[in-house]
């Protein structure tokens, strides 16, 4: 259990150590590096969403002056390796085939060949000379078509894992998951109010500003060095090694600074291509995606279809829930539908429920993680239905949620009992907040929604090195996306009582840091933070032992207090020693002091968020804008509150974009028609008001400071909070996102509000 303690550094807001480099443009991102003798790579991509590859002729490209290497799928070995990450072990065969097609292309933009040349223009021109003969097949670009009995099949060997009748195939349904409790039919029979609706959300992209980029150098000895923008350098190392057929010991990955990831920079897309091009050319190869390629050929998150039925008694008690979820996996299995199913009603104590979830392959890019993968769509559906229940019962939406909120000791819908969770205090805080009762203007509406996410644990390592002047360095293998360097420095400062400015935090490469899982899953401040704290404790123990040597006393007799080693009572000529005083003598007391720790952490324990959104709708155009937004979140313990607030604001901004404008728009040929930021409309700063944040700290007992994950929860409630505000403003219950102006205008003009029980 965590012990409440007074912090000196944790909870303060120092300037991040990497801040000046980032705001002055000195920081090096994926595309910033250049290596001597470097070539440039370009990728030839499929013009079809679904087709057989009949033949590939690369001869014209190879003859092009300046071209040094050409690769196709045949240059990559078959692999059946799996990498443990997430909902199931990642099938590296799928990752490899998604990276470069072998016998079939399965989405528009699927890579079929790559070229390295002395300039990017030559590489691009040569790639276009590659002759590929395709046999086009009917594309499957939505869930309904994919699950139809006569649907074209993407993978002839695919069977439904988890199907109750046993795995059958071929099919486009990759898996089925089921959660059940109580008697759902009896529950609905008991209900006085029932809401049942079908919701849909579009495929959306994380929209990180920095595109995927890397440089790979593979020498005569077959050893590779890769510089890239990634959330997981060790994933890049292990996945790339398996895909290209190298020993992971012969691959070193150096992570650049990262310009956003949100889950989308865990999978490899370019790195294995660059390694094999470099191996052929014997020169470093740099590859940088265009925005068009990022949209078409990296992993967005699933479009979804969710049918929800909720039942409540007149006293407001939810008594039954039924939900069916279908999520698009893209071209290869692995949507986050399982997480969606487990999150859907995680906020509520519902005695009877039945939830089923289907992972569906379609001819779109293979989805990747995106902040709380799977949860936002499920929350959109369930929180919209809860809002309708509140309207039907004419009760305050927060009161209804409080009446049904899960608390410590309640059983989560996915099985175990909750430990300390902050949902109830969040709801009470939101209800008391001035925003909840502030007057609304004309054409404005207010929506409320809650969200849930698990937060990961997994592997982390850290080293803390003392310098002779009493300063320290901390190294971990987690690229810094959300201010984790400064958070780790704060933890070292706290444990060693060194000013945070005298702690230098660094991101190591795969040779220079102990194995660490990805920067993702809201896990870095929690799991890697624990490793940092333990490494600092290890360094502190060594400091005590060195002080003991200086005093010629037993190490066990030395205590530590207020950042100083304290000698045992009665020690002659012994005064308490600071870190700097002990470190200054370390050469004479045994050499360098390096604290280290590695651990495997259980999942951090769940966190909840609750959001209030005010939306103003122009009834003449259907355009809407968020005019006020307040996000409440149980953060466990905010190590650096500014970065926690930043995570909350960033999650809201992305969620609002998902709700109002963002969507992959496909034509009937399965071609995305809006693969650029002009047509794929993400919110920018001028689209949003200042997003207010309210942090609540319910300590997580699994972390010594009480830290929970904070990065993913805030993207969960906005979809429903915005939709509920739209319902309030227009009287129309929208069941499909995004709430783009044409859709909103059409619904307003139809002047036929959807009845609550439709």
């Amino acid at each position, binding site marked *: 259990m965590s012990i409440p303690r007074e912090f000196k550094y944790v909870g303060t807001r120092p300037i991040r150590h990497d801040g000046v480099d980032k705001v002055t443009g000195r920081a090096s991102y994926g595309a910033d590096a250049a290596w001597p003798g470097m070539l440039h790579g370009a990728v030839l991509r499929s013009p079809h969403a679904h087709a057989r590859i009949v033949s590939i002729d690369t001869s014209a490209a190879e003859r092009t002056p300046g071209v040094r290497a050409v690769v196709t799928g045949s240059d990559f070995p078959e692999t059946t390796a799996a990498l443990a990450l*997430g*909902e199931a*072990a990642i099938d590296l065969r799928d990752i490899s085939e998604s990276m470069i097609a072998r016998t079939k292309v399965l989405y528009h933009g699927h890579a079929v060949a790559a070229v390295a040349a002395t300039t990017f223009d030559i590489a691009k021109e040569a790639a276009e000379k590659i002759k590929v003969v395709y046999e086009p097949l009917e594309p499957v670009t939505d869930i309904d078509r994919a699950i139809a009995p006569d649907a074209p099949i993407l993978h002839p060997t695919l069977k439904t*894992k988890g199907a109750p009748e046993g795995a059958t195939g071929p099919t486009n349904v990759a898996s089925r998951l089921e959660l059940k409790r109580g008697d759902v039919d009896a529950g609905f029979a008991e209900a006085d109010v029932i809401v049942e609706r079908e919701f849909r959300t579009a495929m959306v992209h994380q929209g990180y500003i920095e595109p995927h980029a890397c440089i790979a150098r593979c020498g005569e000895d077959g050893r590779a060095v890769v510089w890239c923008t990634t959330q997981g350098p060790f994933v890049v190392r292990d996945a790339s090694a398996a895909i290209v057929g190298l020993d992971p010991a012969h691959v070193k990955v150096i992570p650049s600074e990262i310009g956003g990831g949100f889950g*989308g920079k865990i999978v490899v897309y370019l790195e294995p291509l660059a390694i094999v091009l470099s191996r052929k050319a014997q020169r470093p190869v740099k590859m940088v995606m265009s925005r068009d390629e990022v949209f078409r050929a990296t992993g967005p998150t699933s479009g979804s279809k969710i049918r929800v039925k909720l039942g409540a008694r007149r006293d407001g008690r939810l008594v039954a829930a039924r939900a069916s979820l279908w999520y698009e996996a893209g071209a290869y299995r692995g949507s986050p539908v399982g997480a969606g199913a487990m999150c859907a009603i995680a906020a509520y104590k519902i005695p009877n429920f039945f939830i089923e979830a289907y992972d569906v392959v379609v001819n779109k890019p293979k989805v990747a993680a995106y902040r709380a993968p799977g949860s936002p769509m499920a929350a959109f559906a369930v929180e919209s239905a809860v809002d309708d229940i509140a309207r039907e019962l004419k009760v305050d939406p927060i009161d209804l949620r409080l009446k049904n909120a899960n608390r410590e000791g309640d059983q989560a819908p996915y*099985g*175990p009992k909750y430990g300390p969770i902050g949902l109830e205090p969040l709801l009470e805080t939101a209800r008391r907040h001035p925003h909840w009762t502030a007057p609304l203007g004309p054409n404005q509406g207010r929506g409320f929604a809650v969200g849930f996410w698990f*937060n990961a644990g997994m592997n982390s390592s850290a080293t803390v090195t003392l310098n002779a002047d009493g300063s320290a360095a901390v190294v971990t293998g987690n690229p810094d996306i959300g201010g984790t360097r400064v958070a780790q420095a704060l933890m070292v400062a706290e444990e060693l009582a060194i000013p945070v400015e005298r702690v230098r935090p660094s991101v190591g490469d795969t040779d220079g840091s102990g194995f660490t899982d990805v920067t993702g899953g809201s896990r870095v401040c929690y799991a890697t933070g624990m490793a940092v704290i333990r490494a600092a404790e290890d360094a502190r123990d060594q400091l005590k032992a060195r002080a003991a040597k200086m005093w010629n006393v037993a190490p066990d007799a030395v205590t530590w207090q207020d950042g100083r080693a304290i000698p045992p009572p009665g020690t002659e000529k012994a005064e308490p020693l600071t870190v700097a005083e002990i470190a200054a003598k370390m050469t004479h007391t045994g050499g360098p002091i390096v604290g280290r720790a590695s651990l495997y952490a259980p*999942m951090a324990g769940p966190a909840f968020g609750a959001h209030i959104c005010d939306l103003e709708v122009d009834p003449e155009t259907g355009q809407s804008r968020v005019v006020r937004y307040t996000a409440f979140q149980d953060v466990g313990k905010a190590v650096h509150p500014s970065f926690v607030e930043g995570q909350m604001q960033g999650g809201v901004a992305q969620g609002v974009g998902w709700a109002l404008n963002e969507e992959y728009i496909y034509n009937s040929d399965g071609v995305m028609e809006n693969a650029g930021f002009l047509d794929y409309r993400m919110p920018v700063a001028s689209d949003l008001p200042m997003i207010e944040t309210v942090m609540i700290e319910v300590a997580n007992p699994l972390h010594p400071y009480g830290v929970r994950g904070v990065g993913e929860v805030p993207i969960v409630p906005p979809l429903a909070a915005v939709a509920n505000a739209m319902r309030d403003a227009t009287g129309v219950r929208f069941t499909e996102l995004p709430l783009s102006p044409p859709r909103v205008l059409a619904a307003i003009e139809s002047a036929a509000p959807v009845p609550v029980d439709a």
Partner: protein
Amino acid sequence: MATVHLPSGLTAFTGGVDTIDIDAARVPDLIAELRHRFPQLGDHLDGMAVAIDGEIYQDPGYQPLRADSDVHLVPRIAGG
């Protein structure tokens, strides 16, 4: 004995059994005993996370179990 709860999707392979008491000192022993009693579970247990007394381990490894541990098998979750 640890009490093991199976997600409802797996009960198709256990003859409808969703809760079972198993005498096991560590997670691998528990999984082996489940496979022994319900051979049809087969590879459906692969890739499951395990919640032990409320703490979820994506990879439970050799986690020890108490005599009265409450164990839930939970689908693995990916984060972003």
